């Protein structure tokens, strides 16, 4: 397991939405595709990074409010825990455990999101 790279275990590609996408649409995307994070792509000038993430936890927090009024741009977090595709699974798993999260965004050289690594991807590697 120590030599396996994030690239080999991650889910390649991310689902994206716009800043104006409603919480209800995000909920639909997560439920239909069984994904735990959606990348919000058009945060240029709004936030430090040009993109952000709405996670399952963000959705749960906001779900007590109006799902048609809440938008991805309002919910997106741009301070993110990320790993690079060339990192080892061991290191990524350590980071996830440290931060008590079960999903991290995998970024490429330019810092753009390439995919997501989940705890179940790590489990797949541990299973051998």
């Amino acid at each position, binding site marked *: *397991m120590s030599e396996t790279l994030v690239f080999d275990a991650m889910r390649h590609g991310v689902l994206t939405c716009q800043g104006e996408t409603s919480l209800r649409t995000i909920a639909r995307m997560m439920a239909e595709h069984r994904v735990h994070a959606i990348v919000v792509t058009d945060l240029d000038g709004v936030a430090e990074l040009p993109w952000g993430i709405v996670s399952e936890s963000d*959705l749960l927090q906001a779900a*007590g409010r109006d799902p048609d009024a809440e938008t991805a741009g309002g919910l997106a977090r741009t301070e993110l825990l990320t790993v690079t595709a060339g990192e080892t699974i061991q290191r990524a798993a350590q980071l996830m*455990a440290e931060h008590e999260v079960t999903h991290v965004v995998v970024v490429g050289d330019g810092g753009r999101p390439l995919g997501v690594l989940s705890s179940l991807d*790590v*489990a797949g590697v541990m299973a051998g």
Partner: protein
Amino acid sequence: MRGGAQGTGTEVGRFDYGRVTVGDAMRDEVIYCAPDTSVQGVARIMAQDHIHCVLIGGVAGWSVVTDLDLLRAVDRDIDHLSAGEIAASDLPTVGVGEPLERARELMVEHKVTHVLVLDAESGRPVGVLSGLDIAAILA
């Protein structure tokens, strides 16, 4: 929850979610393993069945091993550890007949995306509810 129960009830009523119970939304299946199941064995169950928690059945009752427990075990000698030895998560529980909103509050409060669903009478686990199950209802 901020705003108190009454405020939350009014708000959720607006999107017709207030009447949904945990039982309506949950995955009514629990996967068990024996306490001495290897860490690799638990990892295989989670990866293959796409589940984030596995119940550990024992004579004295049950406990739960989660994906986070697996992640915490990566630096340990996983070849010589069992499911029972790495299980450290205290997953919140909710009754099958309770409102879905109660489960959502628990998830937010405990910063988790899964809760274990118990039968009200027997106290036995009857299912697991995830954040994605709540997303499906919201959608």
